[in-house]
């Protein structure tokens, strides 16, 4: 399927609905007094888009808009992820005191725009779309990060994010220009063909890919492209940090996988990926993965700010996910997809609790969690515990299954990747320390006389409980999700 513009619109439902919602939000913002209604509208739009996305599963796979984007299960998967993340974020924002003080109409508009950007990142099959969509997500992210008015941290985080993102994407397009120069095309399929045929300068190719890696890498937050993330997560409004940690990360992985795997590699008869020759991806990814998880975990150890800690933990998790990439197998990729879903659930949950506590105490400092369980917040404390242990990768929580599948994929490859698995194992143990530290503070420490009883927003509860239940349920019975992620690994390849 290779469609032109108008024909493509038939398969463009999710995007169109989302765009429509965005425009509607802009307009309605002028009239609606109760801004909560806008949030509801945004959620409705997302749900509609979600339904429309599921509708597309029955459609034939193929190119849309003159081969600009691709319609396949893989892109649909990320659309679902983006929409779920958006829904959770909006829901979380509803009860957040931070968001109550900002321009909510614009806030939801930009959030949905960001989600839309994720759509395109996942489905881009052209370097131009890749760049544009990345910038769409980035720009909205910069703005949303700096969204808290007259807030130093927020503005500063936005500035750092912007500069970092600008340089990273600048580097990326410089690299893309070289690819363009070597292959004469911007289209993945054509690039792949050219690479397969032509005699390339391996060094130039490697350099170009490294430049591109910088652009994608900063989205995925892996070391050393991670530095912005702790500052940004800390400064940004908490619900948006959640979105950033999940959707932006997932989008980065999506665009990376799309570009390197179905984009410019070939599938061998055995079903494995034969990457561009002369580029040592396994090694690069292997080391990137090991360094990323180690640095992330080590830095998280002594954090007192929960959002910062979660940022570092996010880096570590990016490292875990990179394991799945490094081995260049479908098992690895499917494990990544599984992990993304699980990570979405548990990380949003974790940020939700952080938001709840921040609502109450006004800070994300770990001291605010002292004796949480004994201050009338047993349920959030228990849920947070579930999320944190799930992030650690302990059974019977979903995070364990995620790691389990990743380890399984890595060990299936065996050989030098065993080292990777061992490093990951050591990291899991290290990570337990800082996750458990939070649990310790919540349960093991007694509240001090000055600590107040806890009051919880209802809207938070309605999100918290399902997430916690899902975290446990997926840890015990994960067959459907495995099935789904395996099927989502169907790429459209010419």
């Amino acid at each position, binding site marked *: 399927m290779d469609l032109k513009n108008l024909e493509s619109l038939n398969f463009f439902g999710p995007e169109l609905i989302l765009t429509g919602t965005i425009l509607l939000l802009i307009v309605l913002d002028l009239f609606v007094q109760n801004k909560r209604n806008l949030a509801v509208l945004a959620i409705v739009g997302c749900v509609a888009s979600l339904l429309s996305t599921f509708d597309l599963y029955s459609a034939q796979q193929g190119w849309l808009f003159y081969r600009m984007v691709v319609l396949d299960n893989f892109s649909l998967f990320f659309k679902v992820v983006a929409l779920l993340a958006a829904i959770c974020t909006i829901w979380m924002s509803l009860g957040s005191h931070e968001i109550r003080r900002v321009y909510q109409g614009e806030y939801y508009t930009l959030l949905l725009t960001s989600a839309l950007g994720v759509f395109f990142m996942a489905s881009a099959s052209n370097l131009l779309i890749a760049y544009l969509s990345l910038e769409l997500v980035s720009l909205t992210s910069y703005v949303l990060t700096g969204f808290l008015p007259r807030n130093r941290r927020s503005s500063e985080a936005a500035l750092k994010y912007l500069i970092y993102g600008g*340089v990273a994407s600048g580097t990326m397009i410089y690299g893309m220009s070289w690819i363009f120069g070597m292959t004469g095309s911007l289209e993945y399929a054509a690039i792949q063909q050219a690479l397969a045929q032509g005699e390339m300068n391996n*060094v130039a190719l490697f350099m170009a890919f*490294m430049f591109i890696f910088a652009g994608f890498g900063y989205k995925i937050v892996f070391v*050393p*492209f991670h530095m912005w993330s702790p500052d940004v997560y800390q400064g940004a409004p908490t619900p948006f940090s959640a979105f950033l940690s999940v959707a932006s990360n997932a989008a980065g992985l999506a665009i990376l996988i799309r570009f390197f795997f179905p984009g410019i590699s070939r599938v061998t008869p055995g079903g494995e990926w034969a990457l561009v020759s002369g580029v040592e991806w396994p090694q690069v990814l292997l080391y990137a993965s090991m360094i990323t998880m180690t640095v992330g975990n*080590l*830095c998280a150890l*002594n954090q007192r700010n929960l959002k910062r800690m979660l940022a570092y933990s996010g880096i570590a998790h990016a490292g875990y996910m990179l394991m799945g990439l490094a081995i260049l197998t479908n098992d690895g990729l499917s494990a990544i997809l599984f992990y993304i879903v699980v990570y979405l659930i548990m990380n949003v949950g974790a940020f939700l609790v952080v938001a709840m506590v921040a609502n109450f105490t006004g800070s994300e400092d770990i001291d605010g969690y002292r004796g949480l369980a004994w201050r009338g917040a047993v349920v959030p404390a228990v849920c947070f515990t579930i999320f944190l242990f799930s992030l650690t990768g302990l059974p019977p929580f979903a995070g364990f299954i995620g790691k389990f599948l990743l380890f399984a994929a890595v060990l299936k490859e065996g050989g030098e990747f065993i080292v990777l698995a061992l490093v990951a194992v050591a990291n899991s143990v*290290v990570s337990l320390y800082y996750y458990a530290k939070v649990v310790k503070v919540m349960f093991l420490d007694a509240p001090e006389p000055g600590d107040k009883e806890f009051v919880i927003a209802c809207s938070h509860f309605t999100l918290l409980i399902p997430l916690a239940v899902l975290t446990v349920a997926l840890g015990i019975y994960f067959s459907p999700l495995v099935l789904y992620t395996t099927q989502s690994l169907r790429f459209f390849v010419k």
Partner: protein
Amino acid sequence: MDQPIQTDFIRWIVFLPLIGAIINGLLGAKIQKRLGKGAIGIIACTPVIIGFGLSVMALVRLTALPPEQRFLIDNLYTWIHLGSLKADMAFLVDPLSAVMILVVTGIGGLIHIYATGYMHDDNAFWRFFAYLNLFTAAMLALVLGDNLLLMFVGWEGVGLCSYALIGFWYHDHANARAGNKAFIVNRVGDFGFVLGVFLLFWSLDSQGHGTLTFREMARWASTLEGQTIWGLSVVTVATLFLFVGAAGKSAQIPLYVWLPDAMAGPTPVSALIHAATMVTAGVYMTARLNVFFSMAPFTLQLIAVIGLLTALVAATIALTQTDIKKVLAYSTVSQLGYMFIGVGVGGYAAAVFHLVTHAFFKACLFLGAGSVIHAMHHEQDMRKMGGLKQYMPLTFITFLISVLAIAGVPGTAGFFSKDEILWLAFSNHHPVIWGLAVLGAGMTAFYMFRQLFMVFFGESRADHHTREHLHESPRVMTLPLVILAIGALLVGWIGLPAVFGGSLFARWLEPVIAHGEHHGSHALELGLMAVSILVAASGALLSYLMYYRGAFSPDRFANLAGGFFYRLFDNKWYLDEIYQVVFVNGTLLLARFWSAFDHYIVDAIVNGAATLTRFVSWVNGLFDRYIIDGMVNALADIIFWTGNKFRRVQTGNINSYLYGILIAVVFAIIVKLRYWS
């Protein structure tokens, strides 16, 4: 091999005291409060007395059988059965164990009865009898056990009970420590015992006869011939291990140190432990496994030498003791040495015979001493006694008989049994051993008479108050004394020397213990007998002179001052001068030396070993805490440190963040150019 005869009543010999112990142990406090101490006494004594009756019954049953079939088995159930290891919960009565159970229940029963009087003022009366019964049960299990493992149950059981009994007055730390010492030293012995058992079992098993049952083991013993381990004969190694066990239980050098300390317990306990039961376990065990010991000449040699050393050393120490019980304690050690000399020269029957006779006179001595102590309000120092014979005539007479017996006065039990051992030593070509053993016998006579004289004769040295209340002990205490004294007189006649027609006792044991060959003529035997009598008599005489006649003042030996000899001359003891220099001084010096050796070296080694172990454990504890755990913590610290270093990169400065991108890219490219091209 004949099928064993299942005899159901044997189990009750063991179980009755056990039941008594359980009743008194669990309910004793209440019974004592509701029904008084008499009830406790009855509960405790009855099982042992019934046990004695049952033992006699067993004996009668045995005598009815032809010698080769003289064994009764009471097999309760299979205890452990794993692979080739099969140990039944079964009790065996054969001639050897029949003798032993008679001794244990008989003498034990008497001690029980005695104790009801002796312990009457103690509030923990019930607890004492619970322990006592348990002790008896354990000893009986040891003796009756059909296999080594079951024997070991009793073996450890007596260790435990001795621990409890020695430390019975636990309010004093010294007593508790003495109990600990006994138990731990015994454990060292057990360690050897267990290893010996293992070695025997597996060596037999390698020939397809893995068993721990005594009769089976004896049957297949010959298969061990030629087997080696660590370059030595298996039998030798195994018997050496076993002897370590026996040495621990029977207080042989170097493991005897616990025994003198064990006097911390109430006197009936000392009687029970040192006369009838626990300390004899080692001798019993070697007799039980005599087949194996006989196959290991080296072990036998060693046993004989150690037995001799023990006998002599203990005897010399006993010379100077002033504590009435300490003298008896060292004498026990010394007598046990004699028994091991018997074992070492192949005279297992003789050793067991001495065990039996010793049980009588030593029990009598201890109980007599107990009677004295009881009368003296728990005063144990002999220097504060004297002249007791008019106050407590019955005690005196029984004590006297026992002293005669232990000194080896002809006709008494001790004479026959000790002479048997000496004769065997000589006739089996160990003249040196014989000679030294005879010397020891002389010392025995000396110190026993010394005790007799110091306690019962002369002027009373007790304070006025004590003297006022001196009285003969109640009948429950004197009756056992009388019975035991009679035994001490008469029991020797069952084991007459060959010259007088041969030992009934040895013949009785023949199904279990192969009769040793006797070399040498009757004339020689008589001659040797005369020598030993003479030596003993000299010892007694010396003692008489010193302590009865007061010819020598014991004080002088205590402070060997410069004018020592002149004083002797002044007192006109011309003949004794030589004795003085050669024997007494020499012996005293020796005794002091050994005493000091015992105190500063042996005891120090034992205590030092404990201290050393504690020190090692302390160091080990530190090692665990600081090194092993420290490494774990250090690892954690390193991780933290690294984490903090990494975090330091996060300066908050965007320029430095951007370096990350550039450095990563440049580094990757350089690596690519350098290594991957």
